[in-house]
């Protein structure tokens, strides 16, 4: 029939176009996930210490899935142009496996993002910041990571604690065990610093005089990058999967129509 003969090049063209988009999105996904895994904000030690670094696992999977999508899209384009049943069958099966992995990555990123509540970071900060006697090497590694990350966070973002400096007053902490409450109502890094890294007015900082200490909480500085990471992986992956779904259905239809 003339109509189906006309339709075939159109279908081929659409599928090739679909695969080109998949290839480009695969490269973009790989690049985005490499950016997130490189941890530009230095927040990974906090997540590692909470043993809740699922969003990093999702990003790692995303790197390999993106690359696989790129390679498979090239295979798909070749298979469609040559109308080769075997190539297209291999393409479909490998794409399904990649689809499953990307599904896992998206759901992992979205689910683990929900675990990162202010209370989680608060509890971890109170229990680990400047903890004096770590139980073992792993504990010491995590304690150092948490302490360094919090110091950097509080200095760079001019913030203190998770919700505010009163976190250090409302709860006892590992920090409180080694530092007197009279001298350190909150850590020194919460004080407003001058150019040399010394508190501008130590007594003012201890009393809580506005201007001599950081009164904001650091949760915004933590949750901002973490949210970008998690939603970037989850929603972009979801968009790629929706597009891949359509292309795969079209390819299966094309494959079933190829005569031997």
């Amino acid at each position, binding site marked *: 029939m003339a109509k189906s003969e006309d339709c075939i090049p159109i279908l081929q063209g659409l599928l090739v176009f679909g695969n080109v988009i998949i290839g480009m999105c695969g490269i973009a996904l790989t690049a985005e996930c490499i950016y997130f895994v490189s941890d530009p904000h230095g927040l990974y030690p906090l997540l590692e210490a909470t043993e809740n670094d699922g969003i990093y696992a999702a990003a790692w999977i995303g790197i390999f899935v993106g690359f696989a999508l790129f390679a498979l899209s090239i295979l798909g384009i070749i298979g469609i142009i040559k109308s080769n049943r075997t190539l297209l069958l291999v393409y*479909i*099966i490998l794409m*399904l496996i990649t*689809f*499953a992995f990307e*599904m896992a990555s*998206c*759901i992992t990123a*979205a*689910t683990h*993002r*929900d*675990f990162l*509540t202010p*209370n*989680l970071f*608060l*509890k971890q900060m*109170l*229990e680990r910041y400047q903890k004096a006697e770590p139980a073992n090497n792993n504990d010491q590694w995590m304690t150092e990571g948490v302490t360094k990350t919090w110091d950097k966070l509080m200095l760079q973002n001019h913030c203190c604690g998770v919700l505010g*400096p*009163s976190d250090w*007053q*409302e*709860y*006892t*902490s590992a920090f*409180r065990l080694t530092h*007197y*409450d*009279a*001298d350190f*109502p909150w850590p020194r890094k919460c004080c407003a610093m001058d150019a040399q890294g010394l508190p501008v007015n130590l*007594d003012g900082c*201890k*009393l*809580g*005089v*506005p201007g001599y*200490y950081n*009164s904001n909480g650091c949760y915004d500085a933590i949750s901002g990058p973490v949210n970008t990471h998690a*939603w970037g992986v*989850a*929603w972009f992956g*979801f968009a790629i*999967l*929706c597009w891949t*779904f359509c292309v*795969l*259905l079209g390819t*299966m239809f094309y*494959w*079933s129509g190829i005569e031997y």
Partner: protein
Amino acid sequence: LPYVPRVPPAALLGKVTATTFALERPCCVFDRHASAADTVWLAVAFANVSATFRNPPSRADVPPYKQLPTTHSYMTLETAAAAYTCPAPSPAVLRVGGDTACKDQGRQDPCNGPLPSPGPYRVKFLLMGCHGPKAETRWSDPILLRRALSPSTINPVPTRRGSDVVVIASLLASLGTVLATAVLGALGAKVWGSLCQRDLGTSAFARRSYWTHHIPPALPQPPPPGC
């Protein structure tokens, strides 16, 4: 003296902590009674024993900081009366309990050490001269220090599942199921189709019987009579 010491009403986050508290500086309160050699002390007592506190008759009888656990009161912050004149020199608050160095050494000097328990405490200022107390302010209202909770009371579990997770998970699961069904269906149809064709071949082969047309051997027709 009618003055009542109090915690400064200003918004200072550290005005009451677990072991210290701040007080407003009593400016111009002792001017009429103080001479140059007088000192102003701060008497700190637990709220339930403040009624039984007796002013020490001389400087030697001043209860020191380390007696706080036993006598439930002590006096500290010995300053010259000149420090409390008008106009107010900075700072405008006094911090009770801010000196952690003297609590271990146990010196006899007035020690402004950290308070060991949350209280509540009551304070009053006492103007001491050479011959004993000359004037005193009223007792303050009870000051309760902060009590800190243990971090194990913090519950890190999120209160409710985010809606994004549900959307992503459900849509992805349905897409995956549709794809898997489509692939299985397509493969199954092809396999079924090829099986049916093979069956058709063998059965047709079996059924297609060789129909023999019984053609009797043609008897040679006598040639038609010659033309």
